Every structure is written in C-alpha cells, then in structure tokens.
C-alpha cells in the first residue's frame, strides 16, 4: 500500500527557537516528502507494494539489489517517528515505568543522557541516534544513513536525526548544541513511554 507523508504533528513554528520553521519546512516538506515519493515509486507494481513499510524495511535490509528501496522506506519511517519524538515544551525527564527502566538499565537518567548525546555526537557522517529495547534491555545505539532498529530486530523507542539537514540552518557545525537542545527541550517523553508500554 502506498505510504502517505504524515502531516507534522505540530505547526512549523512550534519548535522554535530550538528547531526553526525553515528547518521543519525543508525537512518535512522536501526531505521527508522525497523519501516517501521515491519509496512509493520504487515499490509500485512489485510484491513489496502490498506490504507494510515495516515489513518492507525488514525484507530489504542487507539486500544489495534493494538498497534504494531500503534507504527510502527506512528514511520515510524514521522521519515519521522522529516528528513524533518531539513536541513543543518537550524535554524534561520521563516518569513511571519508563523512568524506572532507564534507572535500572543505565544507572540514572543522566547516564542515559550522556550515552545518547555521545551516540549522536559520534555518528560519523549522516545517521541517527536511538533509544531501543533490545531483548528486554534498554540500549542507546547509533545507525548510519537510513539504517534503523527495525531492520536490526530491536524496538525503537526514541530517535534523534543527526543528518546535517536536521540542524544545519540553525546550528551549522555545532551538532553537540543541537543534540543537547533536543534532549533538554524537545523530547516528547509521553510518546516514548507509549512506545515502551506497547513493546513490553
């Protein structure tokens, strides 16, 4: 089935000054839209067209004859997930079962934050930083380009886009400033907690 570009879950101005409306317009309307369009074009008329995008991501990962499909499918999915992981007046700390699990698996929220910032800061080139549930344990991971936890058999709970297009208009080369702002002011912990609850 064709994958539809979802509207942003907030206004273009909603994340300013942390992420500008210019960045969101290019990022959503151009980058995300192009991945969705390319994905739909590439699977049209093939057996993959009837599968969910998650199934396509799993089926095409590591298949060198389907790299283009994988890249566009995963990037279409990653961006939809990324938009949901942010909200205006976000940040702060998680509560409830997710907070307990973070404390249990990382030692403390600060330890999680340190690992997550390091993952985002050290993903060389384009890619993503993640909080995932991997066989019952929370882990921070990083992936290059389009790669994502679904392809690797993990459950994604939170992501931060560290492709330069995600932050270059607002932060230029200062990726660590963007990453810190993302954690302190943008993460939608309610959404992350929902993913965690659904994954258990």
């Amino acid at each position, binding site marked *: 089935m064709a994958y539809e570009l979802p509207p942003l879950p907030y206004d273009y101005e909603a994340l300013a000054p942390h992420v500008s409306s210019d960045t969101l317009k290019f990022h959503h309307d151009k980058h995300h839209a192009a991945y969705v369009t390319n994905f739909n074009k590439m699977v049209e008329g093939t057996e993959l067209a009837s599968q969910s995008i998650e199934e396509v991501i799993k089926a095409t990962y590591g298949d060198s004859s389907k790299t283009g499909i994988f890249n566009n499918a995963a990037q279409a999915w990653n961006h939809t997930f990324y938009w949901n992981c942010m909200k205006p007046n976000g940040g702060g700390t998680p509560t409830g079962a997710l907070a307990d699990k973070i404390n249990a698996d990382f030692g403390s929220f600060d330890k999680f934050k340190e690992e997550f910032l390091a993952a985002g800061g050290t993903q060389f*080139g384009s890619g993503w930083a993640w909080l995932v549930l991997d066989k019952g344990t929370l882990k921070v991971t990083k992936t*290059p380009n389009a790669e994502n936890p679904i392809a690797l058999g993990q459950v994604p709970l939170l992501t931060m886009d560290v492709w330069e297009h995600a932050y270059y208009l607002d932060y230029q080369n200062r990726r660590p400033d963007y990453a810190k702002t993302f954690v302190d002011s943008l993460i939608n912990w309610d959404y992350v907690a929902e993913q965690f609850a659904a994954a258990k």
Partner: protein
Amino acid sequence: MAFELPSLPYSNDALEPYIDAQTMQIHHDNHHGTYVSKLNAALEKHSDLQNKSVDELIRDLNTLPDAVKTVVRNNGGGHFNHTIFWTLMAPNAGGEPNGAIAQAITDTFGDFENFKQRFNDAGAGQFGSGFVWLARTADGKLDVVSTPNQDNPLTEGHFPIMGNDVWEHAYYLKYQNRRPEYLKQWWNVVNWNEVNNRFAQASR
C-alpha cells in the same frame, strides 16, 4: 610534527555567488579545522605515524593499527579530502576543461557534457555524506566514483584527480535539499589548472 590547517587559497567570498562566504568560512575553519585537530589528537601517542604525510596515511590506511584506523580514516580523510577540495576551486574559473585533461575526458567519456552528467549523477546518488571523484584507477583508466563520508579513492589504489564534496554542510546554507543544483553550479568554480596538475601527478 603536527598536521596544520592550510589557509584557503582565496578569500571566503571568492566563490560567490556559487558558494557563499558563510559556507566557505564554516566549512574551512570549523569542519576542516576540526578534522585537523582530531587527527593530531588521535596521533599524539603514535609518534611513528606523525612523520607520515596525510597522503601516506590515507594510502596506507589498511596497514594502520586498529586503535587508530577509524579515527584516521574519518579525520585524516577529512583533512586530506578538504585540502584537495579547496585547491580544485578558484574564482573566475570553471568553463570548459583545457589541456591534457580535456583530451582525456573526451577520450574516456565521449565529451565534456557526458562526463559532467556522470559526475553529477554519482554525486546526487551518493546516499548520505560523501564525495564524488574523477579518479585514475589502478589500471590506468579514468573513472567517476563516489565514496561515503571521508573515504578517498587513494585507499583503494586509485588516484583522486578531482572531487566535489556532497556532505550537506558543503551546500546546505545556500542550496538546502537541492543537491543536484549545487552539483550543477559547482562547475562554475572548477580550477582546471589544478585538475591538470593532479592529472599529471596521477599519470606519473
């Protein structure tokens, strides 16, 4: 001896309007500058490697100790690639190639337009960050190749004659998502004299 960030061979605004001054300044001072300082930091405890040129480090990358291979690949590669990249551009440059490289391009790709198309397509098709190159391959032919991140054809035994940076930081402030437009406009600043110099080195 520590590696040093070379000065740009022209002013930050020299490549306007095709590449803007702010992009050049951040790209050179911050991105390239950071590769140089990280390379130096990584080699602090490897005095045997400090005396090698960055060209040698990248050419011999696969023989380096595992402890420094990735950091040299990324930051040494970043230093090497950008050092080449700055010299391949110049103000009042561009246009049709001249000299020996013009003939070689015609011989290999049919004509300049075909070559440009190949080069632009490879640059647009490099998913994520990377570079697109015209290289002299190990068997002496010209070819268009692209490399991810800060990799360089030299590590694979091919000599980089000319290359364009397709990391988003090379063009995002001016062209945003329009990488193909950046690739097209870049030909207005190509320094064919330097391309000919590198072609001569490659043929030695």
